[in-house]
């Protein structure tokens, strides 16, 4: 993880404690201290991990509040294979734990914290909904894998032949895996390349993070999601 931290924040400019699939700490981002919250090892997100993420967000809001200092940027470093699949988690009501994380993100945003996600591994389905997608700006590293379902599984469920899905995936970003598809649809704001200086990329992402949800318009602008903004406007009467 240290190699990634060094590249994102600069060598010796981060203090991050790793605890199993979870890590948290602080680091320098654009010459200011930022709060870092992350998952690794393609973590399956269950109630325990969701509570750790939520607790770290609440702690950041609480600390900055009590010290009356400007709210720090919160950086989510995301690597998740999706939600944990188990009867125990369903009994607890994992959806409610994910909703809690979302509320904490929203609270931080309202308190003036900027929320930036960097996908450094996988970002899949419900895990991504809970951890990452609620940020103001979402960035993906070159090897990042963003998806809901792979095409073979989708073929099985929808009964559409796999070969046909592969062909259709060339024309449309709406169902096939890939960070670039999510970029075209406006949910991933930036794709970083291996040659980029990730440290300055991150500083720029923080600078451009706005608190309004502009993803439907961005998807329209990039040609990947042509209807969402118009239909929303039609129903909203705006």
């Amino acid at each position: 993880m240290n190699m990634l931290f060094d590249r994102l924040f600069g060598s010796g400019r981060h203090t991050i404690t790793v605890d199993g699939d979870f890590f948290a700490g602080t680091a320098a981002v654009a010459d200011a201290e930022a709060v870092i919250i992350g998952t690794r090892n393609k973590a399956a997100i269950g109630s325990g991990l969701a509570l750790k993420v939520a607790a770290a967000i609440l702690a950041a809001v609480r600390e900055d509040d009590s010290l009356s200092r400007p709210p720090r940027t919160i950086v989510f470093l995301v690597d998740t294979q999706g939600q944990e699949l188990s009867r125990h988690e369903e009994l607890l009501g994992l959806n409610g734990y994910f909703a809690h994380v979302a509320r904490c993100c929203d609270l931080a945003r309202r308190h003036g914290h900027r929320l930036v996600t960097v996908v450094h591994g996988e970002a899949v389905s419900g895990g991504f909904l809970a951890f990452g997608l609620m940020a103001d700006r979402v960035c993906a590293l070159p090897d990042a894998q963003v998806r809901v379902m792979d095409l073979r599984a989708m073929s099985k469920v929808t009964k559409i032949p796999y070969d046909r899905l592969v062909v259709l995936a060339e024309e449309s970003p709406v169902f096939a895996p890939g960070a670039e598809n999510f970029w075209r649809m406006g949910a991933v704001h930036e794709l970083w390349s291996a040659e980029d200086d990730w440290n300055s990329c991150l500083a720029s992402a923080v600078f451009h993070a706005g608190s309004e949800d502009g993803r439907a318009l961005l998807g329209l602008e990039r040609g990947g999601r042509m209807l969402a903004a118009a239909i929303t406007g039609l129903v909203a009467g705006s």
Partner: protein
Amino acid sequence: MNVKPTCYFEASARTRIAKLVDPDSFSELCPPHLRHSSPHLARLNAPVAFDDGVMVGRALLAGHPVLIAGQEGKFNGGAVGEVHGAKLCGLLERALSERPAAVLLLVDSGGVRLHEANAGLIAISELMRAVLRTEEAGIPVFALIGGSCGAFGGMGIVTLLCTEVVISEQGRIGLSGPEVIETVKGVDEFDSRDRALVWRITGGKLRRVLGDATRLVDDDIASFRAATAELLGKHAERRLPASDLAALTEEHEQLSARARRYDTARDGRIVFEEAGFTELESVALMPVDDFNRHLEGTP
């Protein structure tokens, strides 16, 4: 005059809305004759619907102006795609300018529509933010759950972001459906055909005991209407503040306590027992009124 009750579970979304709100008060926004169906389903040669499986509009309920959406579980399992999700987001955006007494979401959905999975996932995320923004503006959002698809996947998360959750015994809430867990983890982890077990994990009574649902009602539309009317009255009297740091800290404590209390539990039996329902068979059969009386008498 005796009116025959209409089963909520069996009814279509259109019938649910028509019988839930004041007579003839519903007017639909973005109605089916405008033919906003999903181009993504069409491209995959899958059947489309001119309302994309969800109707949205405005109505009165017990005289209160509401914005209301109903997901049609019989179309693609109520699943959320680009158009479907955008209609829901648009309704919540409209609430900010129209300021209804509440936004009612008649959730009946398995979550993201796989034919347009990326669009569906993003739409759910937008919907999550839209619900939070509406609540922040002081407008409560209610989820009503009692259809065959329940509230699963991303719609399970959206439901738990709502201010009030009204559910029937047949209603179900969860994240991953039993079939998905069984397929991936095996039948020993979750036997999706064991209906009693599924009920003890996801069912309305269990969700009410845990506090994820705020009202349990009988499976007829009139009961949903009565509970919703009562809640509209309650919220009209006292506007709920947006979740602040103290409220979310409290919520965090409660969720942590739940996780500790049931740290190894894999069956709702223990949850019912701890709530004082000593015999499981009797909980399953207990009329909703008796169940509610028992629960509200329990500290």
